């Protein structure tokens, strides 16, 4: 016996969640098999589709750039319909917590480095800080939270020529914590509105920021304005300041990413998707070109999981869906073919932000997203791939990581579900 489902999705990020939701829509019994806590908690919480393509960008409309993408790019396989289906699944999963669905156009969101990221969907708390909207901006950072340097971020935005003025200030947080206190500690203090000498954390913070306001019509903070009571925190600050308040997405620990993770996993629960997490899929048993069992390393002992259809959504080099040593790049679970130059010095460019070959490493999908071997034949008839493990996209340059995950997840999940239930 083994633990048995119709569709087994391996992975825990946005591609895996989308594939599972998509497969569940077909009526299939789906299981998500995740190794660790989702990598969504390391992500900004922004959902991009396509910001740059070829020499074009930032793109006002991501769909305008699809023709510029190279042959073999995942978007060329799933097409505009696939992208739209991925966004539909996302919108249904997160509901009102995200904005951007009213238009095809990209929004420009200020990052905590002061760059502008073309983004298709963004958390509601980010909305009033869009660079693509007008209104002078005050960015507030905290001396003890060194990741976000508000004056530097403001200078970057000004230098990029935004059509409004931006100013950044660093303030002491109203309450003092240990020197290496976590971002979440600040968020909790705001959540609970803890008391401080001059009142409460929220009121003291608003007072300090009000002293700095000089005609700006919106105020941005690093994304730490509350955890469980974030809307309440933001509303109170906006109310006290008399201008809208927004959050600037941060790196890990990313509260926006954590919240997105919660929303997607709640949606999985609601869709009846079963979830097994905590252990990696490492091996499999097959009969000819059909995978019969996926083996999970459950603390050095293998547990078999059986399914009719499998979706591989384990991520790229960072997510460990791809592995590399000094000579080879491999896909470690099923041994799928990952093309790469023989000489590893050809894997990267000398410039840090160059057009690196390694960024496009991944499995090569056929037109139904089945990974193929060196001859272009699919490895297994019941294995599909989605997200970062799929090669052909330079998601960091294109600003397409979330979109590729959503689109390939939606299509791979639907096809797997249909095959399993037909």
């Amino acid at each position, binding site marked *: *016996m*083994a*633990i*048995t489902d119709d569709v087994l999705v391996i992975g825990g990020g946005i591609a895996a969640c989308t594939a599972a939701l998509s497969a569940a829509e077909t009526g299939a019994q789906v299981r998500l098999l995740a190794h*660790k*806590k989702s*990598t969504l*908690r*390391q992500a900004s919480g922004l959902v991009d589709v396509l910001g740059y393509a070829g020499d074009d960008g930032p793109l006002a409309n991501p769909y305008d750039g699809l023709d510029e993408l190279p042959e073999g790019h995942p978007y060329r396989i799933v097409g505009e319909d696939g992208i739209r289906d991925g966004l539909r699944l996302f919108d249904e999963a997160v509901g009102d917590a995200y904005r951007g669905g009213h238009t095809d156009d990209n929004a420009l969101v200020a990052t905590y480095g002061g760059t502008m990221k073309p983004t298709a969907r963004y958390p509601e708390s980010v909305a009033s800080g869009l660079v693509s909207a007008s209104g002078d901006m005050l960015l507030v950072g905290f001396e003890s939270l060194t990741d976000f340097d508000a004056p530097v971020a403001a200078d970057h935005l000004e230098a990029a020529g935004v059509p409004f003025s931006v100013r950044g200030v660093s303030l002491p947080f109203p309450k003092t*914590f*240990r020197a*290496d*206190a*976590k*971002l*979440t*500690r600040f968020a*909790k203090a705001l959540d609970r509105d803890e008391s401080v000498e001059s009142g409460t954390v929220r009121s003291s913070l608003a007072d300090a920021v009000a002293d700095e306001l000089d005609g700006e019509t919106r105020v941005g903070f690093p994304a730490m304005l509350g955890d469980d009571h974030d809307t309440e925190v933001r509303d109170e600050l906006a109310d006290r300041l008399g201008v809208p308040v927004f959050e600037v997405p941060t*790196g*890990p*620990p990313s509260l926006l990413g*954590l919240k997105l993770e919660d929303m997607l996993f709640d949606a999985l629960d609601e869709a009846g998707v*079963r*979830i*097994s*997490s*905590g*252990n990696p899929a490492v*091996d*499999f*048993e*097959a009969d*000819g*070109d059909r*995978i019969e069992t996926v*083996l*999970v390393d*459950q*603390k*050095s*002992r293998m*547990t*078999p999981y059986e399914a009719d259809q499998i979706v591989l959504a384990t991520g790229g080099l960072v*997510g*460990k869906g791809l*592995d590399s*040593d*000094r*000579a*080879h790049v*491999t896909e470690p679970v*099923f*041994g*799928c*073919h990952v093309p790469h130059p023989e000489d590893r010095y050809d894997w990267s460019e000398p410039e840090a932000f160059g057009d690196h070959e390694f960024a496009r490493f991944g499995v090569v999908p056929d037109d139904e997203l089945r990974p193929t*071997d*060196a*001859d272009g034949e699919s*490895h*297994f008839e019941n294995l599909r791939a989605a997200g970062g493990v799929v090669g052909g996209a330079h998601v960091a340059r294109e600003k397409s990581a979330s979109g590729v995950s959503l689109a390939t997840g939606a299509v791979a999940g639907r096809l797997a579900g249909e095959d399993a239930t037909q």
Partner: protein
Amino acid sequence: MSDAETPPDTTPTPGEQGEDDFEPVEVFPESTEMDLRPGADNCYKCTSCDVSCPVAEVDDEFPGPKFQGPEQWRLKRKEDASVDDSIMSCSNCMRCDDACPSGVPLSQMHNTARGEYVDEDMDKLSREYIRNRILANYGTLAELGSMFPRLTNAIMGNSLVQQINEKVLGITAEREFPAFATQTFREWWNERGGPQVRSEDKRVAYFHGCYSNYNTPEVGKAMVRVFEEFGYEVVVPKQRCSGTPMFANGMLDDAKRAAGINAENFAGLIPEGYDIIASCTSCSMSLRQEYPELFDIDGLEDISEHTYEAMEYLRIHEDLDSALADASVSEQSFAYHAPCHARNQGLDRQAVELFRDLDGVTIEDVGDSCSGISGTYGWKEEKYDKSMQIGADMFDHMEHADGNVGMTECPTCSMQMEHGTGYDIKHPLQLLEEALV
């Protein structure tokens, strides 16, 4: 790899490749001690572990798992630096292991650092050391106490004794000491004459641990009856504590002694076709992960590879879904809490998944927070309030859930659930017994 068709462009594994054309340089002198450096080097300071730490969330003085693991490891490389005493505030819930995206062996680092701190820096005559030693060796205490269970229960339930425990030993007076059963599991087992089913090919050895032996023998009995119903021969070897409370208190010598005895009594059964079954998820965690991580004793690797949590075993080896589909129980409604140690073994959702469709049962997961007791942590007088703060989310969710009976696999989570809500708490095996036996 498997018996699948080999992909044409197959590449050698990293290990083989290394031997071919890459000569690693030996930078550090060879050492016979456990080398955690590669683990420390894997940390890229994303702080995901800190965010997942239930103690750091309520204890502003606790620097969190990233410090306790990779950072502390580096700091104590210096000759004159010893392990920071904040390591004693780690509750060993092991949630950081599950949060790390980079394979840092955080709990292993914590366990070794804590062991080193207790060995080298803790005053062996201090109240804290004596108290921790007593708590860590609960099994020995329980063995004595359960010789005269009624008398012990009366004494331990006496509020004056509880006050003395708190004042003299630093064991909180807020908690009710768990009652000892009038008949231990092993006494019951011997009275019934051992195994009632014999089998050549379906054999399990039960690791009952301390709690289901001395305090909740009904859990152990349920395990035996369910497995015998499925045709398994159950044996119950002599055993010591799994070591979990000893790891959490840095008593690694005690834990190693116990592990040695358990290895002696269990490892020999594996070649005879026995798998090891635990009903407590901390016991199975210890046998599977901590034993091979911390001790070099013959048989521990074998034990690790053949240990299962009870329901997990049945899910893999029997058609539990079908068995439950044909079963029904009287109407009952549960608020289920997944123990932290069940999470790391990937078992946190199986009870809800299995019982959701069982006729007569409604079951609801009360969320992913830690219960806060973490074995001995919540028994310490100075940790009690923090323990209750950590548990607040769980209590709240339990009260909002439809169920008015709690369910969990972990004995100390169950104490905390009962303490915070007044609910009766059941083990999933007890419901399985009701449904199938």
